């Protein structure tokens, strides 16, 4: 059982928490048109890396707050815990964030309201 450091309550057992899956998935706004295929990157596709993974956790049986956890899926080592809306601050955490194929995905661009070039093929690597 993991021991997770809730940023608001401190170290607690995993059984007090719920895992919310991959973090930093930007939600494309409905009025920013993207193709069904690109939207599927947001809606259906989740990473499952062997190694460092940035994921969302919630202290459901405690303060009920959401936060982010950088966890190694092999060693279960928790590299850092950081609040919602923030980015990882460790070098490895930042690298994992930048390396995600989502950073280049049209879904993320749509979420940030970045004007889209018409694309011929999806650039997403999955």
């Amino acid at each position: 059982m993991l021991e997770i450091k809730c940023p608001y309550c401190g170290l607690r057992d995993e059984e007090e928490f719920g895992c919310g899956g991959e973090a930093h998935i930007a939600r494309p706004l409905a009025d920013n048109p993207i193709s069904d295929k690109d939207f599927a990157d947001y809606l259906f596709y989740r990473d499952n890396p062997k190694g460092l993974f940035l994921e969302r956790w919630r202290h459901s049986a405690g303060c009920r707050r959401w936060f982010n956890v950088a966890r190694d899926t092999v060693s279960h080592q928790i590299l850092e815990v950081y609040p919602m809306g923030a980015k990882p601050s460790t070098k490895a955490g930042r690298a994992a964030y930048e390396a995600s194929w989502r950073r280049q995905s049209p879904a993320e661009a749509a979420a940030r309201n970045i004007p889209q070039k018409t694309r011929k093929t999806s650039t997403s690597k999955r």
Partner: protein
Amino acid sequence: MARKTNIRANRNSHQAVSIDSHAPISFTFDGRTYQGCRGDTLASALLANNVHLTGRSFKYHRPRGIMAAGAEEPNALVGIGVGGRIEPNIKATQIELYDGLVAVSQNRFPSLKLDMGEINSVFSRFFPAGFYYKTFMWPASFWMGYEHIIRRAAGLGKASDTHQDPDRYEKRHAHFDIVVVGGGLAGLNAALQAANSGQRVLLAEDQHQCGGWLRSCDDIAIDGMAGHEWADKTALHLAEMENVTLLPRTTCFGYGDHNFLTLAERVTDHLAEKPAHLPRMRLWKVRARQVILATGAIERPLVFAGNDLPGVMLASAAQTYLNQYGVLAGGRGILTTNNDAAWHSAFALHEAGCLITAIVDTRENPAPAVLKQAAALGIQTRLGAGIIAAHGRLHIARVEIAPLTKTGDALAGEAEHFDCDLVLMSGGMNPVVHLHSQSRGKLKWDERTYCFRPSTSHEATQSVGACNGSFEPSRGIKEANAAALKAVKANGGAAEALDLPDIIARKINYTPMPIWQIPSGLPAGQGGKAFVDFQNDVTASDIQLAVREGYHSVEHVKRYTTTGMATDQGKTSNINALGILARERNAEIPAVGTTTFRMPYTPTSIGMIAGRDIGGLFDPVRVTPMDKWHREAGAKFEHVGQWMRAWYYPQKGESMEEAVHREVRAARQTAGLLDASTLGKIDIKGPDAAEFLNRIYTNSWLKLGVGNCRYGLMCKDDGMVMDDGVTTRLADDHFHMTTTTGGAAGVLDWLEEWQQTEWPELKVYLTSVTEQWAVATLSGPAAQEILNAAGTDIPLNNEGFRFMSMREGHVSGLPARIYRISFTGELSYEINVPARYGMALWTTLMRAGKTFGITPYGTEAMHVLRGEKGFIIVGQETDGTVTPHDLGMSWIVSDKKPDFIGKRALARQAMQASDRKQLVGLKTKDPKQVIPEGAHATLDPDQPPPVDMLGHVTSSYFSPNLGHSVAMALLRAGHTRMGQTVYFPMLDGSPPIEATITDTRFYDPKGERLNG
């Protein structure tokens, strides 16, 4: 054989250090009464009574006896206890004897000495490795029958089936700075050094006394004391320290991520009378900052034909029975070994009175010291030799000893025969690396002692002493102290290094000869069985067969032969199995690899893991403030999530159907009263509350006037309906949301998630108020008159209090919010009062409504009433694949809002498909026929299989108000099929039910009754 009562007089240096020979107690085994001593294990007491045969083996039903003296025992599994306390498959070596203990042998019929199942042994040629996989393949239709027979034949003990477990189990969470597992020489030293720092230390010892091997050996002196005396003194000292928790009778059985340890403390198992205030066992869930494992080592058996006969025992176990319990396991013994250490066990037994007739060593050159001692004791030796076969029916009687080649893989001469009643065997030592391995530490093969020992740790853990392959006592304590100092330092503390105790121990070379099977001189599969895994009856030739059949990976061989898969997890078998596998593959053991150890280290009671979370405490039961009234009215209840809801209120002699029909009629003809307190309620407050709801729900919320209510549907971001309910604007910045009863917690989670993770800029507070409000729904033509009769300061006329609005005031003096909303289609008031007034409100309304014919109705009537109106229930009409459009509720999906959860997904191409399943009504041809819910629709009842299915019925009732049945169904392209006929084939073979597809609004389709 049997206990030497005069053992002190007999041998000055020896005493039975773990028992109180002045405290005799009696116990029964297979119905016969025996005497033992306080401190005995069942195994030692049985041996003291000359009982060696303790059970029959798993597969071949071979007679088996006690082989070991600890957790590694593979043979002596017995059933313990009576009535509800019966527990099967317990190792006799781990049962602490108490007065009146009842034990029975297992896996035998009709008796232990005469067992019918032994015939399996005769036909063993036909039970090779993978027997079940090979034999019961076909015909497939027989599998169910096979399984039944196999399970009957293969089971070991029987659990109690007629009684409930009378015992109580507790759980305890704890944090420690340093946890030491194992209270032997190394563990005691580690704990002592760790405790010296003042940090909080837990020392867990599996046995009831500390000391480990110090209790069994007679050749270690520490600080001028016998080893066991030093252990007792040190344990006492530790127990008195304030920062030390010493748990005897506690097995650390699991070691998980982030230094999380699970320990089983046996609190009352050793007591004849179980005090009521004590739990039987206590599960410790411990989070440790640093862990020191000092779990010791287990002796390996040797693999030779007949090595499973009762009377064949690990050399160290025989020494344990002698020194700890004063029991000589035999009178005429032979030692077979590949190492020096076991010679000393044989010497100890010989000196205590068991005549050791020969020591057989596979090596040609044991240490001169042991040869000298053997000669001095007059014990003859056979060097470069092994026991190639053991004989006897229910007990060892004779062995064949033959010289071996230098490598030990063939015979080098003729066999001699020796009579004996005890064989001591020793194949070297296996460090107990289970916990290290469970915590994902790596193992390495030690070429010096031919065993796997810990290499790198994954958690903050160190292994010390024998479990680290350091079998020499002086080396073990050095490691222990160093590890403790390192742990203290890692925790940020400091401790003065204690002087190491002064140890006098015999110098022993622990290097064994690597020999994994003693050759029998016969081809593989012939001759006697040479067991590798005793508990699962796996022989050396089974492993050879597996390799011949192409199973090379250790994981495959393990599963194919089942070696190491018994409840002992191969404590005595794994290394021998790996050795034989490596030999058969012409590979080295490290190249063959090892399998992973899993928790639990030893079998653990499920009752302890469940703890108190059983029966009524398994899951909370929630009741409404009016619960007592429903019970007194004789209501039948149904579970809705954790809630108990009144289902229907049968009157004298009424069937459920009659009661529900009466309630349903009353709600439309006079008035019905429903306890709706269980509805989920969420208080939503903040300047951005309206904007928040606007994004959550599919329809618009910004312009909802204060005091007005609106029905809303929530989708997940995939566009599928997840919940619905009515939400009311209490103030500009304040809303009262209702959810489905079962969905309340999930909806609050959902709202919080979006608020915190996606829209943190929205200023909104979310509070669950489900249990703060009691709700009585008054519904029917007489509702207004009844409410007036109860007395209210809220004007109820249609102009002043319109449908879909809320008024705050009083009902019969109780502060109340009345919502004029309707789930029945009738004039309806949902009266909310603070929960503590719930019962007062209910009784007031019942009293006021008496003359009007008010009728309480339950959830079943509520379902029928809404079914008549075609109102959906989320989770019944929807299943996570249904969009608002599929439900025919496109009217609730705003196309003006820039965004809401699910908006983009609803625009996906797949959501526009014309063949989506859509909600429709059904009217049966025979109005009395009610289609079973879940029935599948087809257009052609005579179509041969596979039948083309259109969809299924989601709700179906007989409507007493309409006089015919009503049903809703999700059918492919249902909205385009109005008027079509569909058929519902019946499972019971009766003719398919014929129905016409209709609109879902069966009753009062124009909604004229809402205004009474």
